[in-house]
């Protein structure tokens, strides 16, 4: 049974350990139609597209994490649309581990109410599987980022996902030396968009949660001994996840992270979903910092489903020319 989630801060290991399929919900190729009756047009098309998907497809339930103002309200809206939902209050200000462990304990109870069984052994197994998937995805991305695969693995069983990535690694070829672009943003669930960058002569690196941010963690260095310490492990893993603009970090960790990623790149593209407030607030000052270290920067605003690939192509090609 599918349990849908929207944000990569969702503890998918717990959903998986309870016997559900954690399924990341994205906007699809389907035009946004039914969702417009539930939420205003000035919400981002990832939110509207995910709702559209939820209204068409079969899910057992949906799990939300507090990220942005839209996601905060979306839980209720999904419930109003007749869906079973639960919201985990992921902290906005990162730091208080105990608080988040308590949130996860509550979530375990909910999974049990939903008929799942969460045991120490099962959580450890899910943790192991996801860690393997994350490690292999990172390896694949080191050869050559494969966005189609990165998106696909978020919607299939983790064991199948590992097999899929294994196959991709076998056939992966290292990319030739080309000017490198860092694509930064939230989600872009359309592999064809990334192809545009390659077709324009870039090699690609990313800071997206439909790309590297899905598998970028620094893991705690202890072995969980019981269910509660496994929850602690998960809490810590997610608090130490690659930084996202929806969270508040000490010492501007998010900016420093992106600046570091950009070091070996020639250009940076902000690939932002229209109405995505957290990213758009960061954009001007982050852009300034990136330009300060000599990067060429462009902003491309997206709305899902992406209808005009050619407009994006024109922008990307122009950027490629500037670099030459």
């Amino acid at each position, binding site marked *: 049974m599918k349990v849908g989630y929207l944000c990569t801060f969702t503890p998918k290991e717990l959903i998986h350990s309870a016997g559900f399929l954690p399924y990341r919900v994205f906007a699809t190729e389907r035009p946004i139609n039914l969702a417009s*009756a*539930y*939420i*205003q047009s*000035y*919400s981002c098309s990832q939110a509207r597209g995910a709702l559209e998907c939820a209204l068409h497809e079969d899910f057992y339930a949906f799990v939300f994490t*507090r*990220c*942005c*103002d*839209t996601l*905060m*309200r*979306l*839980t*209720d*809206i999904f419930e*109003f649309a007749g869906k079973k939902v639960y*919201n985990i*209050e992921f*902290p*906005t*200000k990162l730091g*208080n581990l105990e*608080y988040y462990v*308590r*949130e996860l304990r*509550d979530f375990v109870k909910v999974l049990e109410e939903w008929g799942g069984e969460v045991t120490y052994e099962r959580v450890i197994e899910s943790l192991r599987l996801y860690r393997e998937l994350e490690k292999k995805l990172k390896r694949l991305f080191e050869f050559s980022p494969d966005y189609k695969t990165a998106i696909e693995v978020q919607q299939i069983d983790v064991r199948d996902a590992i097999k899929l990535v294994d196959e991709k690694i076998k056939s992966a070829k290292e990319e030739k030396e080309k000017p490198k672009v860092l694509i930064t943003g939230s989600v872009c669930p359309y592999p064809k968009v990334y192809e545009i960058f390659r077709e324009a002569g870039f090699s690609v690196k990313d800071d997206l949660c439909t790309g590297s941010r899905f598998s970028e963690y620094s893991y705690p260095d202890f072995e969980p001994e019981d269910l509660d310490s496994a929850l602690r492990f998960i809490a810590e893993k997610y608090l130490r996840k690659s930084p996202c*603009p*929806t969270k*508040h970090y000490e010492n*501007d960790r998010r900016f420093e992270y992106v600046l570091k990623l950009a070091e070996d790149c020639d250009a940076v593209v902000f690939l932002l979903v*229209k*109405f995505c*407030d*957290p990213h*758009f*607030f*960061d*954009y*001007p*000052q982050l*852009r300034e910092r990136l330009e300060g270290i000599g990067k060429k920067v462009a*902003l491309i605003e997206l709305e899902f489903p992406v209808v005009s690939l050619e407009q994006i192509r024109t922008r990307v090609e122009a950027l490629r020319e500037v670099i030459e």
Partner: protein
Amino acid sequence: MRKLRTSDRMRELMGHYYMQGHQAEFNAWITSGAPVELLYAMDIYPVYPENHGALIGATKLGGYYSEFSEKRGFSRDLCSYARCDIGCVFAGTSPIGGLPKPTFLFACNNICNTVVKWYEVLSRIFKVPLFVLDMPFVRKELKESHLRYVEEQLYDFIDFSEKITGKSLEDSRLKDVISKSLEGVRLYSECLRTAKNRPSPMTCFDAFVNMAPIVCLRGTEHAVSFYTEMKEELEERVRNGISAIENEEIRLLWDNIPVWYRLRWFGEFFERRNACLVADTYTNAWTGFGELKKDDIISSMAEVYTLSYLNIGMDMTAEIINRLIEIYEVDGVVMHSNRSCKPYSFGQYEIQKKLSVPAVIIEADMVDERVFSEAQVVTRLEAFLEML
């Protein structure tokens, strides 16, 4: 519309408030839903960028100041309070000559997560510390775990402020500020409640215009004396049968932040159609701060502020609106779908269906007059009033 005498006094009071900010030894820029009592108790002067944004909207300069930040790359889709306020920082001025430079910043996300991002921007511009008070969203029920999380942060905040100012928070001082806060909120709530009378002595436009003291001066004697005076004037109107509008036939409730640059326009529009907007959800939100407990200040502060109006789930919101509908005996609700305020606006389509009276949704923006479509608003409102 009959203007309240106290509105002139409010202008004087707020003028004085803004001037004082420039003389204060320490000042903190603070979000509208944060526990300001802590600042007053530590002699830290609170500066409200949101109130500043509203003021800019009311002077119809929202578009003008927004452009200063838009030119720097801030998207036109971002909150217009934020765009305006950041714009004023870049412009180096504002209708009141700009806000004083902050000693530190204090953002509480019980009204939105937008303020966290907005204050991060300010923190980079001014190179001053930012304290984020993270309040979990209460979708269904307030959890003990959430309260503990907030309470711990309140103590962190006190430490943080004490370190910066070198002063310590005195219990007696905090108690005194809380007493004044409670007194101010009580009087303010009583002012709003006079609108229960038929005809109502005030409109929500009077409430909007006169809300600045409860936001900015809550916890001081100024708010207490201001709302005492306002209450006297309103009660005098009730005694003498003086109504806010000429001929009150329809009573309405407003939802969301006002359209600041069109306050008078809306007021006259409704008055011409004998409709009185007697109350609203925005100004009513501050009445909730009257639940603070004098004997257990920090933990009751955690509870009261976490349960702020924009930090609760849709079921609770609909319940509150239905209660307001009952208290003020309104015939309909006008819901402002506000492009600038996602947490206030998303969910309105659903809430509308849970209300006990008919509601209409109009699209606008609280400060950015460039997106206001008069013809569309008129058509919707006229159809709605006719239906009522």
